[in-house]
């Protein structure tokens, strides 16, 4: 967790314990925000409810600004922040599979757990499907291994690839987010649904 575990400030057991507590809090907040409703979740694809879009973009903008300002004040060393390595082609294909699964199943992996916890049967089926997927991926791994590792780019940051500073990129993301919020609210009015 965070800087605490890698910097050996807390032990592995504390790490797991804190993860447990934060997992419960995360699930609770997800549920309270209505993310256990598959109709709300897929609403973003149909346009009648764009709360998912708003929540994710708000989180991204908040974290992005927080990190940049913390770095500016010297409270955090951005070079020490772990960035997932990019495998370009599998990421694109994986994103498409994830999106199709999202529309068809009505959940993403985390929210399916959340909805299972409050007793939604479709979410339990979705959750079971995850394991079927894991099984087939694991058994078929030798077949996709080559593709799975293709397009490795290291751990680049978008603004580095574009050749602009992190701050300018952040401003562009904020403007894009504001436009998408506006577009989302417009869609909600355009494609309203009474009950879902």
């Amino acid at each position, binding site marked *: 967790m965070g800087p605490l575990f890698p910097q050996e400030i807390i032990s592995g057991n504390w790490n797991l314990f804190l993860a447990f507590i934060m997992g419960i809090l995360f699930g609770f907040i997800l549920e309270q925000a209505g993310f256990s409703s598959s109709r709300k979740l897929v609403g973003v694809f149909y346009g009648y409810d764009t709360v998912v879009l708003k929540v994710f973009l708000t989180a991204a*903008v908040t974290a992005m*600004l927080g990190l*940049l*300002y913390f*770095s*500016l*004040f*010297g409270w955090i*060393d951005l070079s020490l922040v772990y960035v997932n390595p990019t495998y370009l082609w599998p990421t694109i294909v994986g994103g498409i599979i994830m999106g199709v699964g999202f529309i068809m199943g009505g959940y993403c992996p985390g929210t399916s757990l959340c909805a299972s916890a409050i007793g939604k049967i479709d979410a339990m089926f979705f959750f079971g499907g995850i394991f079927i997927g894991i099984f087939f991926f694991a058994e078929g791994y030798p077949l996709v291994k080559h593709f799975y590792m293709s397009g490795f780019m290291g751990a680049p940051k978008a603004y580095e690839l574009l050749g602009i*500073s*992190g*701050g*300018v990129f*952040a*401003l562009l*993301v*904020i*403007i894009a*987010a*504001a436009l998408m*919020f506006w577009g989302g609210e417009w869609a909600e009015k355009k494609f309203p649904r009474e009950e879902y």
Partner: protein
Amino acid sequence: MKLNQRILTSAILILLGLVIAMVPENTTRPYKLTPQQMVEEISIGTEMIQPDELADWLINNDPTLQLIDVRDPDAFDQFHLPGAVNIPLKDLLSDEWVDYLDQDVKMNVLYSNGTTKAHNCWMILDQLGYENNYVLQGGLNYWVETILNPQKPGAAVSDDELARYDFRKGASQALGGGIQTASPAVDKPKKAKPPVKRRKKKKAPEGGC
């Protein structure tokens, strides 16, 4: 009213974005130690590596040893210790070398001609919080003097000193130094005996704890 709030939030966020877009990125690397901690580190002096220790590791091809030559490339090309990489003082902070300097696998021994430059580098690295960096005591000058061209001690010295001389002579041959080629052959049998005895005696109490 509701719309106003949204516009206000968006305006604040965009303003924050504008500010962050206009300020330069903070690229300073914070020093990790306070001056007091630094004084303590220096006064303990644990960063020093004796030339005899280093010679021993070099002869044994210790895989954890990484020598770092902080002198200019010209000086490096003229002479450097076996296996050393050249990281001149002015390149110390470049990204190219950070994997060498900030790691926890190898033991870096910095050296220059004397000790000043190597110590300057060590202090910066230590402040940055990089571990496993050490300084060769006396630098290359002392290395040449003690290891590559050891002076035969006089008659009235301790056995320890003779043992050390003996080791240095061997090291000198192994590491390509040594101008005296004639004398070692004569001295060898004489000097070879005492150190073996001494070391055995010495090791027993050392191992006790």
